[in-house]
């Protein structure tokens, strides 16, 4: 993250905005400071699903600089359900900081029957997307522009496992408002090309 741990953690305090960093989430209603109603749109290749439901901030631990979000909902066709349990932790890295996250995605109904093959990859993308959205937000809130993608993501190699740490590239495409595998990976790829030619992204 393009800012120190304390500063970055500071950015995390605007819970509603952070909740909006959940990939594809749109907060439609604020119930209280920790509970929101909203929609989550997932797009995986040709598939696209919209879930109506609740986003809850289940944990804010300033000491550990850890935030935990839970999103839960039923899709608009009424045949699937999904829940995402996403944890974000800020780690000190001198004048910068790392966002370390894990996400658990569980599906119900048809999505569970047909999505098993891809759920862990989806969880992984949600995590990257969250990081990307968050980094973009940190940058937007006055931190330095984030540096290019790190090796883990930038090499264009397949994504890491569902619970891996995931520093993320900042790119307007990447900060899209939905979980969009193609957009995200394409952005990653572009950053990788830029990295190859020694330029840093605008």
């Amino acid at each position, binding site marked *: 993250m393009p800012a120190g741990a304390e500063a970055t953690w500071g950015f995390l305090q605007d819970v509603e905005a952070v909740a909006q960093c959940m990939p594809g989430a749109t907060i439609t209603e604020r119930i209280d400071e920790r509970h929101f109603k909203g929609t989550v749109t997932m797009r995986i290749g040709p598939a696209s699903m919209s879930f109506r439901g609740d986003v809850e901030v289940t944990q804010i631990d300033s000491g550990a600089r850890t935030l935990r979000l839970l999103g839960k909902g*039923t899709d608009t066709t009424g045949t699937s359900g999904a829940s995402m349990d996403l944890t974000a932790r800020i780690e000190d890295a001198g004048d910068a900081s790392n966002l370390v996250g894990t996400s658990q995605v569980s599906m119900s109904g048809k999505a569970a029957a047909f999505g098993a093959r891809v759920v862990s990859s989806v969880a992984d993308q949600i995590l990257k997307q969250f990081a990307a959205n968050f980094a973009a937000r940190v940058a937007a809130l006055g931190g330095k522009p984030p540096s290019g993608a790190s090796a883990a993501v930038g090499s264009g190699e397949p994504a890491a496992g569902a619970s891996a740490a995931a520093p993320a590239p900042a790119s307007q495409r990447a900060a899209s408002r939905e979980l969009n595998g193609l957009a995200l990976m394409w952005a990653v790829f572009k950053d990788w090309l830029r990295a190859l030619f020694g330029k840093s992204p605008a």
Partner: protein
Amino acid sequence: MPDSVEIREREAKLQGMGCSRKRKEDARFIRGQGSYVDDIKLPGMLFGAMVRSPYAHARIKSINKQKALAVPGVVAVLVADDLKPVNLAWMPTLGGDVQAVLADQKVCFQYQEVAFVIASDRYAAADGAEAVEVDYEELPVIVDPHKAMDKDAPIIREDIADKTEVGHGPRTHPNHIFTWEAGDKAATDAVFAKAPVTVREEILNPRVHPCPLETCGCVASFSKPTGQLTVYMTSQAPHLVRTVVSMLSGIAESKIRIVGGDIGGGFGNKVPVYPGYVVSIVASIVTGVPIKWIESRIDNISTTGFARDYHGVGELAADKDGRIKALRFTALADHGAFNSHVSATKLPAGLFSICTGSYDIPTAYCRVDAVYTNKAPGGVAYRCSLRVTEAVYLIERMIDVLAQKTGIDKAEIRRRNFVKAEQFPYTTAFGWTLDSGNYHPALERTLKAVDYEGLRREQAAKRAKGELMGIGISTFTEIVGAGPTKVCDILGIGLFDSCEIRVHPTGSVIARLGTMSQGQGHATTYAQIIATELGLPSEDIQIEEGDTDKAPYGAGTWGSRSTPVAGAAAARAARKIKDKARKIAAHLLEVGEGDLEWEVDRFKVKGNPSEAKTMKEICMVSHTGNIPAGMEQGLNSVEYYDPPNLTFPFGAYVCVVDVDRFTGEIKVRRFYALDDCGTRINPMIIEGQIHGGLTEAFAVAMGQAVPFDENGNHLGNSLMDYFLPTAVETPKWETDFTVTPSPHHPIGAKGVAESPHVGGIPCFSNAVVDAFAHLGVTHMDMPHTSFRVWQQCKALGIHER
């Protein structure tokens, strides 16, 4: 001599019992002119689509129909509250429970029926179903039946929380359905206590689905002016369905007509009454027009008629020579969210107590505990009589376990324990009387055919090289033909069956029966029985089933009961007609009945063969005035047959497999199946039934399972995951037979369609386990997928090169 040649020619013309007559049914099927339920189109017919729950256990906070009603083409949306005024929100099950037709306040399993959208066609109905908004509150889920009766287990069925009994005996927990026992527990425990050898194994019959190629469905048509309800449906038991529909709708049975039509396979899946049928009937009554409801494949596998899910424990006590002294089998039965399995009232665990198998076991005890879980309801008999596959699987697996423990060859230990030919009729420790059998010759014939000794030598050589080869034996005894009304009834109705025969002046015949063919070829084989009995060509004998307005009452086709029960009714109905014909013949020939003898198709005067009357002649005369004084015209009869006992087909199978220990792949090298189903009516059809049954056994043993995750999510409900083998995966079958007629059946027949399924499954498992036997493995649960077999290899440390 020419005389006998002439007789044989006349016999051949009849195409009666014992010949491989080509099927009457085929003519329409090969032209694509079958009449399955989805082919039916009635004027003004609307289409219904089901809205189902994505959650396994949840409270329904609200259902909003408005968006759905706004979808073009949508006529109505039904929910539980709409069914309550007509008392149809809940329906009775064949297991003595009630089941929600549409979810009432909560859903108890994933894909449960929540709302029914009625629209102009299936496209509009699908759009409408998507637009119904249901707000759920998820509840904790029970998937593992072993946890169902925990103290803190969530209560699945609040609606019956205060009921002390469901189907059978007292309940001890809100998620407990029943506990059923048979045999002598004390005596059995005593034998086990001092037996020199005992073996115990936990053996799972996993949840599977019969998955016929045609899903379930119906077209319900209620006529307001006449008050007549006609339902075309995929039912294996139309008459029972009519009775149930009458009971729950209040419409007189005489005003209800159930029509079976052609059925694209049943295998047990099409015996129960499903919410889709009931809600379609309500919808037709409400709208006044015909309603069609057809299950999708996903809905079929997810919600209607699963089988098995028996978590068993098998124990045998024996002497050091491997002679079994006692048997103790128990099972925990997962019945899902509603107790809608199909069982005779007095037999909540079906015929599970046939578990002594082909063996002379003096003392035995068995017990089944059934529980509710957040899974689809059911527990049907998948190509078997209820719980017979579970029972036979246990005994055929356990005798192998005993063989390994005692170091006795798996064929030899069977020889030592078989019920001997001279012991028949043999009464088992559980009280079943095996009508007839001849087990030793069947086994020897099979072993010789496959060169069993040679196979064992090859196996030894392979083992020395670290290769895995398995030889499986199954010497099963089936129990089919439910059944005697004194033991078997459903909702109080005895499981007799019926046949009505009408002979016309020209000698053509219509016979109607209470059964319902789903591919078994009844129109062909019943005609063969009647042809032989009456001496009239089967070509002239028309068989009709499945239309409750035409056919006499019967319990339908399941549990291989058609030949044992309805087939017997056909023979006996024909004999009534033959007796009357004999009187007419005696009258015409002016001799006493005792002076007549029957020959193929005619009555001849003893010692004066030129004096004879053919059946054809008698048919005509019976409709004239030239019959004995006081006799009624016509040659008609009806028989309602209550069998004195069930029938007990048996077989001896051998399966040979090769296992790739690096991938877990199993190749079935050979499968030899010898079946004895008593008198054989049509060998061609028998062989076809055995091919099919073995293929379904292969599917169950090697790949079929209905998997759930810990949240009750169904993880294999399309044909992408659910294993239906293609021509590539399916092994080649070798078939053989012996004939040991049933002493109590009019023609000695026993029924065959289920033997290969029931006997085949343990044969595959025994072969797979045998491949690992030398490494100390005594049991591996089905299905034997590459993944699971590899896990076994890994546990043994032989999975790497």
